[in-house]
């Protein structure tokens, strides 16, 4: 792990001109002038240089000894391994993982409620809609590999940066549906009675709403017009095929939810990849035609109780090793294009997951607001 990281850092260093010095410090013996920052100073640090280089950041983070992360389920985009990897790489820092199954709104609520306390979240992995309402909670920071994140994937000041996206996919049990799912209308068939579940209430959960958006794209709608998606679920409900059970890894393993429309990385994680806890017959399909994705953002809490550890966590997430871990789960990392160019991407994994889609639809903030308004007035009646 460590050697791979260093090799990756070296390649990156060659690629990212401006950052060579910093990366050199990371791999070197730490001769750079490390600085000791106060809590307030560390909360305002905008790059590794403010700590006097990577060694200084690691030292400061070690001194804090803790990192509070929130709403990171172990089976979500490989976060189980990513968290373990961090603790292995930086054994002096203990990760407290709060409320793994919570929503983006829960992250904001926790940051507000626990402001100034040692248990407040240090970093957020957050959906765009909620984030845009709460930009004042965030601290700007640019990771060393900032140049590898495409410009349209990040805030120019470093307030937020895309991390990874899944594609909306249909997971199903091949044993129950040997004919498979080739188009979304297949799900309306009578053999799918009491079978199709989504990840909650679309007026509450972004992942569930994305299932509706996918249905819209696949049924002649667009990001500006999601009504066909609502109509699709109404038909699904009328056909008796819509399940209101909240799908989990357990309901997929037991066969209770034999079809789940959700992010590809979750469908992949609940299938054979999960070993004995998963469903060995679980297949993940990304339908041809218009695809739907939605990047999750990384951001740092402006009032992070462990500001150095928070920044070290971001540096860690944007190393090729961790970006490859996202990829292995079926989530496309933000630095994928740069990694392909620099050949730091895990070729076998990329081959298995499939190349990143050239174009997929991601709702803009305005489109998402419009879609949500329509959902809140139409959804309950459609499936009620």
């Amino acid at each position, binding site marked *: 792990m460590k050697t791979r990281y260093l090799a990756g850092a070296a390649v990156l260093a060659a690629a990212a001109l401006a950052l060579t010095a910093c990366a050199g410090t990371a791999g070197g013996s730490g001769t750079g002038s490390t600085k000791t920052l106060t809590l307030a100073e560390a909360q305002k640090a905008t790059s590794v240089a403010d700590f006097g280089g990577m060694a200084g950041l690691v030292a400061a983070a070690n001194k804090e000894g803790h990192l509070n992360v929130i709403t990171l389920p172990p089976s979500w985009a490989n976060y189980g391994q990513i968290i373990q990897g961090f603790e292995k790489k930086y054994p002096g820092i203990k990760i407290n993982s709060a409320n793994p199954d919570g*929503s983006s709104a829960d992250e904001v609520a926790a940051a507000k409620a626990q402001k100034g306390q040692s248990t407040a979240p240090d970093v957020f992995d957050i959906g765009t809609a909620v984030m845009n309402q709460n930009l004042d909670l965030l601290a700007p920071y640019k990771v060393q590999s900032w140049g590898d994140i495409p410009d349209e994937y990040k805030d120019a000041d470093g307030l937020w940066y895309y991390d990874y996206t899944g594609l909306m996919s249909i997971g199903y049990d091949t044993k129950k549906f040997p004919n498979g799912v080739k188009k979304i209308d297949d799900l309306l068939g009578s053999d799918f*009675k009491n079978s199709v579940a989504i990840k909650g*209430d679309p007026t509450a959960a972004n992942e569930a709403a994305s299932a509706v958006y996918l249905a819209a794209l696949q049924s002649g709608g667009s990001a500006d017009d999601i009504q066909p998606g609502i109509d699709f679920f109404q038909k699904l409900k009328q056909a008796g095929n819509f399940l209101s059970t909240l799908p989990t890894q357990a309901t997929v393993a037991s066969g209770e939810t034999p079809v789940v429309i959700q992010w590809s990385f979750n469908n992949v994680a609940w299938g054979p990849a999960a070993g004995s806890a998963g469903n060995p017959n679980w297949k993940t399909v990304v339908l041809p035609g218009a695809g739907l994705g939605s990047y999750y953002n990384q951001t740092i809490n402006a009032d992070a109780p462990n500001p150095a550890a928070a920044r070290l966590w971001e540096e860690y997430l944007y190393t090729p090793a961790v970006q490859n871990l996202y990829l292995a789960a079926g989530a496309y990392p933000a630095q994928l294009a740069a990694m392909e160019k620099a050949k730091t991407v895990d070729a076998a994994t990329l081959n298995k997951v499939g190349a990143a889609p050239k174009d997929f639809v991601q709702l803009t903030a305005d489109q998402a607001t419009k879609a949500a308004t329509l959902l809140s007035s139409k959804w309950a009646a459609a*499936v009620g």
Partner: protein
Amino acid sequence: MTALASNRGAGVTPRRRGARSGTGWIGLIPFSVYAILFLGIPAVLAIASGFFTSGGTFTISNFSAFGDPVILKDLVGSLGLSAASAILGAVVGALVCYAMLGMNPDGWLRTIVDSAASVLAQFGGVMLAFAFIATIGNQGLLIVILNQVFGPGTFSSPIYTVPGLTLVYLYFEIPLMVLTFMPALEALKPAWGEAVATLGGSRWTYWRKVGFPILAPAFFGCMILLFANSFSSFATAAALISQGGIWPLDIQRALTSETVVGHENEAGVIALGMIVVMVVLMSAYGVLQRRAARWER
């Protein structure tokens, strides 16, 4: 029952009551502190949040939530579910209590029912949801067997709808009724029955003129407890009906929505609505009990 007892006490020995009140309140402190910290303050905070915007300015615009057809539909869902599970739970629970009256209080059956009731009355949340999914869920044992016998697709599980939740809630409502109603039933004195019989009344006369009137306040009190229990239940419903349909789920949605953002403070308004429903119900019960108490005097 407690209220009745203290009323009677007050009538007989007013002076002793007055003397006790000098220091008696000290004993109330632990409970009061507990109730204020864990019931009073959170309730006030929750309700207060309904009167502010997420930015912190005072507003009453959150009350427009009560004009939202979804919220209104879910109120009906919540009231219907709670009433159905409270009435059914109270009736069935009372019948179980009645059946248990005839048993030896120290016998094994009675002991088992007593302890099972105390355990099952607390059996709720996601565990309960999964217990029902495993037995009568769509892939549950019972539905699978029935569909194998009568052909695939003949039966589908009822537990994923708001009315279907009644069945699930009864699982903890009936034991709760047994727990809370049994003491009242046990307090019926056999002598009253004998008195009725001596005066030539039938068993039906006894229940109509003596048993039911005495038990009525306790029965309806227990029923209100069951109602509140269902009305505020959240986790079981959240696991079974992810698309909403009752108020506790609406509160969650308002608080945690990732898609329809900026409605957090509507949760406080719905919470206030829930408290209003309970206050109305408790007041109605209070009136009822006063009438019963008049008869008792």
